[in-house]
């Protein structure tokens, strides 16, 4: 809630504008979103291991899959799949200190010419293609050995690590993203999956 996420703050923004007479429209858009991303969105498992002083994240995420997603992808929409990771140092008398906050950005799109589902790592530009949506979502839901932290960033104490999965509309121009503030039927996020960092 404290980080700038368009989808999350869109929800907050709607709750702060009760005077709008277009609440019915917003409610209608909420129903559309529920239909589009209907299904399970959850971090099923996650852990880290240390390899030569590097903390590597392994996670399994279940993303919703349905005809609406398939149709949308085949119509050309691009979906962004973000995996947010937050590592905090616990403090007794104050809020936890934020040590690391990283996000794994990936996009899923349907390649109409090749009839393949393409998964692209936004940061590196690497991409894989899959014949089916299940394979593509399975690939996105498997995160293995993603380096998120190095030991020198830790200086003792107890740490917690939290993982959350986001799904939203991808490849949006900034100007259009601002307009999507009011209503975005392709924005959903999972609950935080939190555990203690084994130091």
């Amino acid at each position, binding site marked *: 809630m404290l*980080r*700038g*996420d*368009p989808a999350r*703050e869109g929800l*907050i*923004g709607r709750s*702060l*504008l009760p*005077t*709008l*007479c*277009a609440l019915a*429209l*917003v409610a209608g*858009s909420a129903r*559309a979103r529920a239909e589009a991303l209907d299904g399970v969105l959850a971090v099923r498992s996650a852990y880290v291991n240390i390899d030569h002083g590097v903390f590597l994240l392994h996670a399994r995420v279940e993303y919703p899959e349905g005809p609406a997603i398939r149709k*949308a992808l085949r*119509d*050309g*929409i*691009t979906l962004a799949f973000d995996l947010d990771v937050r590592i905090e140092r616990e403090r007794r008398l104050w809020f936890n200190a934020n040590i690391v906050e990283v996000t794994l950005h990936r996009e899923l*799109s349907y*390649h*109409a*010419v*090749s*009839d*393949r589902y*393409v998964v*692209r790592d936004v940061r590196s*530009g*690497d*991409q894989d*293609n899959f*014949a089916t949506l299940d394979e593509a979502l399975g690939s996105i839901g498997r995160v293995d050995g993603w380096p998120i932290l190095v030991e020198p960033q830790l200086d003792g104490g107890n740490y917690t690590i939290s993982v959350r999965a986001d799904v939203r*509309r*991808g*490849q*949006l121009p*900034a*100007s*259009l*993203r*601002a*307009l*999507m*503030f*009011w*209503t*975005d*039927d*392709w924005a959903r996020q999972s609950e935080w999956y939190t555990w203690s960092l084994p130091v």
Partner: protein
Amino acid sequence: MVAAGVTPRRRRRAPLNAVALAVFWGVIGVSAFLLLAKSVQNSGEFARLQWWIVVLNACGALALTVLVAHKIWRLVHDYRRHVPGSRLTARTVAIFGALVIAPLLIVYFSSLEFLNHGIDSWFTVEVKQGLNDAVVLARAALDLRMREYSHRTQALARELATVPPAAVQARLDAERRAGEALEIALFGAQVHIVAASLENPLEALPAQPPQDLVRQVAQHLPYVSLEPQAGGRYLIRTGAPLDESAASHDMRFVAAVYPVPAQLAALSEAVQGTYSQYGNLAAMRGPLKLSFSLTLTLVLLLAMLAAIYGAIFSAQRLVRPVQDLIEGTRAVGKGDFATRLRLPSRDEMGYLVHSFNDMTKRLRRARAEAQHSQEVVERERARLAIILARLSTGVLAIDRHMTVRMANQAAGAILGTELAPATGRPLPELAAGNERLGQFVGALAVRFAAGREEWREQLDLDSSAGRRTLMCACTPLPGEGRDVGFVIVFDDITTLLAAQRDAAWGEVARRLAHEIKNPLTPIQLSAERLRRRLRSGMSEQDAEILERGTRTIVQQVETMQQMVNAFSEYARAPEMQITRFSLNQLVTEVADLYRSQAPRTRIRLDLDARLEGIEADRGRVRQILNNLVTNAQEALEGIAQPALEIATRLDSTEEGEYASVTVCDNGPGFQRELLGRVFDPYVTSKPKGTGLGLAIVKKIVEEHGGRIDADNRPEGGARVRVVLPVMDSTRSAGGGARERRDQMRRERA
């Protein structure tokens, strides 16, 4: 200075509120603008700042809503309570609001319609269909390649099935070069690489074949797929089984990777990119329209609220001077001329307010002057009232209809009724039951009816209390129409006339006593001498005639002597012997004397026991009583049951104590026409008597400083009342008996 009735605190708070509101809106506007500018410069910042932008705008919208609601509630409240200016404000707000809201609504609906149609037009069916056709076209072009490469791979697989193992590598290399493949590999059981030919000699091993390829060739089917790569490249991956009879896990197959020509790849990538971009945008059509609609609606709401607030604010600013003028006018109407309005500006309204302030200033000055003049008039009126009240002359102001406008105390005293409190009432109405006033009103009416407005005459007013003579002067007062009036000035000259008559009669008496009395004695002596001398020489008959003649002469002379003595008595003024004696005892003595002389007359005494004694000339007071009782007895002659009552009373006034003696009889009473002159000499209704009895009584009473009046009793009979001061000092306050007598003598002289 503020208008009366306007709360100064409210007026002081108004600029502060305006400044606070301006600061508030300024902060919100500048903050929102800065945040928006920052977010526009960096789209990544928008995600972080948009919450604050929303909060700020929400705060602004909420504050604006509350302000407008409060303003409208206040306006409705004032409108219902008929607060001055509220109707004008409401009308102005309605007009301003309509002028602003109507264009806003037009622009809003037009924009909404334009947006919806515009966005819909971006995603027409033709464009979508064109894109689909382009995709199909690209696929067809690529399918041609894919089929070609798949056939080559299948042919290679059939050939390799018969090629000895030593020649496989050479065959793969030859095929790779011939087919321009990136790599060709022969996989054996368990997907182990048997041989491979790579275009890039740095790569030691070929890429692991994808699972779907392995699964497909395991089913003895050829495999071909198009794989998009990063950078807009395309690869065609093919697979073909060698041993169609072998088991799936021991299956040998050929896998090859062919590049798509760059031109075809670029075209295909362009088609794909357009398709994807269009799909992304098309998917946003609904949300885009909704977002635009919501944004427009919010802007419309904010604009409408701002317009309404601005309309109310402007209307109140416009109406405020009018409200001040209304309240100021009301204050002036209530008499508060100290009201001064604040100058709102230098425009026409400011000129109006300035004129109002100037008017109140002039009114205040005029009222001060009028008040000063009124005070002067009141002082003069009070002074005049004091003068009129002290005047013995009656002053009466009436209008044309004889309604009393003003009357002094003396007028009421002379006319026998209180006129001062009767201001505003008509004189004829007041005259009811007042005989004297009735005659006065009648005399005025006769003269007014004759058109006489300015006159001076003597009026005689007869009443049961006696005749009063007034010297009356009438003068018209200046005025117009109904304001025309008259002032009537009159004096009661009855006493003056009586004094003049007394003086005249005194002179007559003195002359009679002097001129007539002296010859009477020689006449009488001469007549007796003639009778004595001539009687002896006359005949009986002549002697008889002489006797009768001389006797007649003597009798008439005696009669004349009595008359002369009476006049002498009336005229003479002997020295008064003031002693203290009991008036009740003197009355008793006189009553006893007359009881013995006239036993038929019943004489009743009603004596006041408090009256112990008075200081007066006892002999002359006895003469008063004798004259009064004699006069009464003479009046009672011929009355069947004559009765006479003598009463004494002690009266106390501010000037001193007075003793009164009242003599009443049951005779015929005084004749009405003589009632005002009964104390004049020779005024009598009796066949005998000198007519000087009551005149002498009055003279003695006045010498003692007393007064006398006569009237008729309601039950019949005459009543004479004599009032004498008990103490000589009381009458001395008016100059004393001697001085008064000397004065009377001088007056007579």
